[in-house]
């Protein structure tokens, strides 16, 4: 791999031990990926903030002890802790103290403490064509697909190396020629009414991830104009069941004005037709429990946006959550503050909803044992909850989640899915 004099300085340790360690990891990765050179990035998003276990903490503290500082504007993904509310839940205090140390280590490097998995819905969102190094699978697919920024799928541990050096191996989705579609996914007979419903996107995303794996799908047949939140749900689903880092929707996403443009004038290597039967099956797969009582509704993976708070406020105004059901929303501290200022939190809290910020149920061990049967409108929560938390998860639309929370059992409106 060709290194610039600046890269060599970092690698040789002339710019300190943190840069040396980060550049050593980056250049070894560049060799694994057959990179010919490194390129400069102008922004980073760090997923390594999620506290998993001691090794990730030791890594963060090693870098921090070397005096590591980020070289580019850098946002932080969800942490392992809601600093103010974790004591209200089942988070063990030893776990909390380690998660807090990990947060401090990354903050000490000069990153912005955004603590969100939806950094594209903050003022730090990148622009079309910008070279960035992002971690967090749902953020990666949104940045690439919806914004048209350029990022590889940065795993935990590598994202911070990119932020410290401002350099990455020039491979994969950083390079225009690798951003064309691989497979064509055509919707057939999917009513526009369903396409406009929020529950269509996580279900379709779940199916898309299974079809595409780690390839780039090009979607045709979307007649609706999906909102950012709907595209966020689509990407999060596809990046959970598969490792989709970029999708194109013809006439919707910025690199797909036409089918030919989305494929960079190449032919698709395969074509899939999606019917209502496929979508119904995918929707059923997202539910791991039956139509039974529920202990909790959880919304906010990816983190709830202001628009989602507004939609929820309309649905819950004047109603009350069932006394046996907890209703949890996960978002960032910034979106919570904005939602409060906008006056939408009153209706949500009067309904009985609780907030956890800066983390989510998958990133912090907050759920007490008595909460076993959950419901969500998120494909990502639905996909990971059975394995990660050993609990059942029913899937429904936002309106289904509200009706179920009021009734205390799973209620789903199937009319759009017939």
């Amino acid at each position, binding site marked *: 791999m060709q290194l610039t004099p600046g890269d060599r300085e970092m690698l040789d340790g002339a710019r300190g031990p943190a840069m040396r360690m980060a550049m050593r990891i980056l250049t070894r990765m560049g060799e694994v990926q057959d990179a010919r050179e490194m390129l400069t990035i102008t922004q980073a998003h760090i997923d390594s903030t999620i506290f998993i276990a001691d090794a990730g903490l030791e890594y963060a503290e090693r870098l921090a002890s070397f005096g590591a500082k980020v070289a580019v504007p850098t946002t932080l993904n969800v942490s392992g802790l809601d600093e103010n509310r974790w004591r209200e839940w089942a988070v063990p205090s030893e776990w909390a103290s380690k998660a807090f140390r990990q947060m401090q280590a990354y903050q000490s490097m000069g990153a912005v403490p955004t603590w969100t998995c939806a950094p594209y819905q903050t003022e730090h969102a990148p622009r079309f064509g910008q070279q960035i190094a992002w971690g967090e699978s749902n953020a990666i697919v949104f940045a690439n697909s919806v914004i048209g920024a350029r990022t590889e799928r940065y795993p*935990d541990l590598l994202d911070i190396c990119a932020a410290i050096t401002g350099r990455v191996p020039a491979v994969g989705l950083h390079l225009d020629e690798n951003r064309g579609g691989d497979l064509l996914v055509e919707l057939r007979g999917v009513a526009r009414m369903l396409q406009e419903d929020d529950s269509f996107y996580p279900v379709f995303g779940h199916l898309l991830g299974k079809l595409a794996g780690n390839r780039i799908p090009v979607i045709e047949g979307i007649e609706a104009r999906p909102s950012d939140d709907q595209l966020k749900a689509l990407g999060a689903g596809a990046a959970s069941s598969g490792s989709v880092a970029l999708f194109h929707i013809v006439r919707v996403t910025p690199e797909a004005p036409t089918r030919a443009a989305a494929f960079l004038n190449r032919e698709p290597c395969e074509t899939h037709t999606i019917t209502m039967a496929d979508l119904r099956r995918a929707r059923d797969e997202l539910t791991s429990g039956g139509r039974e009582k529920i202990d909790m509704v959880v919304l906010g993976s990816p983190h709830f946006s202001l628009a989602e708070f507004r939609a929820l406020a309309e649905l819950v105004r004047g109603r009350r959550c069932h006394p046996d059901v907890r209703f949890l929303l996960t978002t960032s501290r910034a979106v919570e503050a904005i939602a409060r200022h906008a006056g939408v939190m009153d209706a949500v809290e009067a309904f009985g909803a609780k907030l956890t910020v800066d983390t989510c149920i998958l990133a912090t061990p907050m759920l007490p044992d008595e909460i076993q049967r959950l419901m969500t409108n998120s494909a990502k929560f639905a996909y990971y909850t059975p394995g990660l938390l050993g609990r059942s998860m029913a899937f429904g639309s936002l309106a289904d989640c509200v009706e179920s929370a009021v009734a205390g059992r799973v209620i789903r409106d199937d009319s759009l899915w017939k």
Partner: protein
Amino acid sequence: MTIQGQAIVPGQASGELLVSPEPLSFWGGYDCRTGEIIDRRHALSGQNARGRVLALPFTRGSSTTTQVLLEAIRAGTAPAAIVCPEADSFLALAAIVAEELYGRTLPIVVISAEDLARLTTGREATIRGGFLCFDEPGQNE
């Protein structure tokens, strides 16, 4: 039988093969306290990969895979080695960082998809550099 591949993280290891017919996300799929595969939708759900030579088509999903595998290497619950059909940067990264932090090596070898399809769970395998060797007598092909 010997299969020649490319060592993307060079090293030596041996163990019983555990062949996954489908991709695996380590986050939500691998218990780094025990080495058990805990993705209940996965074909290897309930199997333990600790100390085994794990053959995987590719990794899936979350960017947190690398932290889980790094912790497994630290805790001694990782596979002995990993074999995959393409240079999987997530797995390689965990192994590279483990060398930086702990001076421990998790060898990773890339072999062709055809060779990967010939592997069967249960055989004893040894990784030496880019080679995957099967020592078990009477099972030569």
